[in-house]
């Protein structure tokens, strides 16, 4: 492996890190407040689609990112009402949302752009890279933004009264309630932040990293983000590192696939399973014990 390869692998891993990190950081905030959402895959799909649509209408990629955040927020409102206010099951709406996302995006690409399965986002609607070399390696402005989001999320969660309350309603809503904290409001807010972050991640897929909308654009990243959240022990900074690792394995599998000598020795599919295997090992407490917030996924009803 030479220097050019290392740089390409590193930049590829950073690019792949962004959507997983943003979605996981959101999921960390939501679950710290006690709300489980497994519908991020669907949110990624929807916001990749609408993000591209808005970016093209405005001729500006950043409008797409904001549009993605807005679409994510809408689904957050839906999930929040169902789980936080109607005290419904946390898992089922996510399953519905994922199915809806796959169907709606494939349907939407045909209905809106009239092409089957794939639409190229024009370059004026994409986000220009911060830096680029002659070999096509590039660095997106979303990479430093994502790193900043991780640090801010960590600081807010663990160093501010707002973060303390978020964690309190996920850990012990009864005590929080007794202290006069509006459990529902904090849970709802956390769901909105999480969904908006997933919305940004989805739009990043279409208007920045991949530059195209496809009918399977999320490709499981919503679920990978959930795995990474567990891997991180519900910590935004570790989630950033975990997302980089997932991104690295992703790129490394492609690298093996394209390298005839290595492809003969290790099947790339084995490398591709590594992030999931590692997550299982971590969750099983063999490397370190992962413990979710106590009231994670449980509706809170005042007695």
């Amino acid at each position, binding site marked *: 492996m030479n220097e050019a390869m290392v740089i390409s692998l590193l930049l590829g891993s950073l690019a792949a890190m962004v959507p997983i990190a943003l979605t996981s950081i959101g999921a960390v905030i939501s679950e710290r407040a006690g709300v*489980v959402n*497994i519908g991020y895959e*669907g949110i990624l799909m929807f916001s990749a689609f609408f993000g591209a649509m808005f970016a093209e209408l405005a001729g500006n990629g950043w409008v797409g990112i904001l549009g993605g955040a807005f679409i994510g927020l809408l689904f957050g409102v*839906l999930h929040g009402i*169902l789980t936080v206010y*109607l*005290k*419904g*099951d946390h*898992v*089922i*709406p996510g*399953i*519905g*949302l*994922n*199915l*809806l*996302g*796959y*169907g*709606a995006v*494939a*349907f939407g690409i*045909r*209905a*809106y752009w009239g092409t089957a399965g794939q639409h190229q986002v024009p370059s004026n609607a994409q986000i220009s890279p911060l830096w680029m070399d002659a070999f096509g390696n590039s660095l997106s402005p979303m990479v430093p933004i994502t790193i900043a989001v991780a640090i801010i999320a960590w600081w807010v969660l663990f160093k501010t009264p707002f973060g303390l309350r978020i964690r309190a309603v996920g850990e012990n809503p009864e005590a929080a309630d007794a202290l006069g904290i509006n459990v529902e409001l904090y849970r709802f807010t956390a769901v909105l932040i999480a969904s908006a972050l997933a919305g940004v991640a989805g739009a990043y897929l279409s208007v920045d990293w991949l530059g195209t909308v496809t*009918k399977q654009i999320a490709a*499981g990243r919503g*679920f*990978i983000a*959930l*795995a990474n959240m*567990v891997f991180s022990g519900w910590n935004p900074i570790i989630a950033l590192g975990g997302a980089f690792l997932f991104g690295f394995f992703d790129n490394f599998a492609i690298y093996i696939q394209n390298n005839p000598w290595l492809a003969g020795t290790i*099947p790339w*599919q*084995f490398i*591709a*399973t590594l992030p*999931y*295997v590692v*997550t*299982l090992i971590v*969750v*099983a*407490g063999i490397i370190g014990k992962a413990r*979710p917030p106590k009231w994670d996924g449980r509706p809170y009803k005042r007695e």
Partner: protein
Amino acid sequence: MNLKNELRGYVKPVAESVLAILIGAFIGALVLWFSGYSPGSAYYWLIKGSLGSTDGIAETLSKSAPLILTAITFAIGARTGLFNIGAEGTVYFGAIAAIIVTQYLQNPLAGILAGLFIGALWALPAAVLKVYRGVHEVISTIMFNWIAFFLVSWLAVSVYYNPKDPNSTLPIPPGARLPLLVKGTSLSWAFIIAILSAVVVFVVMWHTKLGYELRTSGQNPRAAEYGGINPKRSAIWSFVIGGMTAGLAGAGIVMGTPPSYAITQGLANVYGYGFDGIGVSLVGRNHPLGIIFSGILFGALSAGATAMQQHAHVPLEMIKVIEGIIIIAVAVPGLLDLFARLFRRGEA
């Protein structure tokens, strides 16, 4: 008297499912209308394509078979208090196991048993992680689904590939294929196996000691433990039985679906049944007999989608949109009461 009460217990959940289906159809119609398609024409062809001919009905029932089986996987989990969403990966393994075993033993029974066995085996790690390490099954089963995807892809592409057709695995040998129920259609014994499985699971869950233990563990784990029921045993059985039906689903797809009788490229023809089964189970209220009906409904949606695309020119992915809305509607707690309240307010 007792029968009357029992019937009443069924009416509300059935009404809620029907309402959710209507909401899905209604919002689906709105989406079609906004996108410039004719909802009337789309729904006409959807119904005509799935129920309007012998071929259509055969296709509907054929598509419903794996859905019924993967729905049972989720339903057994739900009844025992577990969110087992591992049916997806188990289906892949059931399919590849049937292909591998029937290369040597050219007998349909061998393929079916291979699916059952590998399904039970693949379900065990998640069960063990849950019981002995407290790993939440949503996380572990999602991880195992991805691991299954890559491992079975490797087996399909690198080991059991078809040298004559790069787009698929080796086919099930003719002697091990499930006989067709109606000649010239895709309806095979896989459908009968699915229905039988649903009935067997119903009997086990509601008329045996094991089923009683499983359901009690789901309804009230603490009471179950006081009553001398071992919750660990219940959880393991729940995963294992669920794994068997999902494995059977995979074996049934490759052994009973002409013309290919193989796994196609990218696992395309075995992909998605596990996830769709969750929706089928929810609409069927996690009850094996309800699942037979909702499985046939989802089968009809998927069978009618092709006709809808051909004749009404509506992309067949529209069906997933409707399915997704139905599931979200099912997830609304007290949907019926909420609707009744809105309606009453409208009158006042």
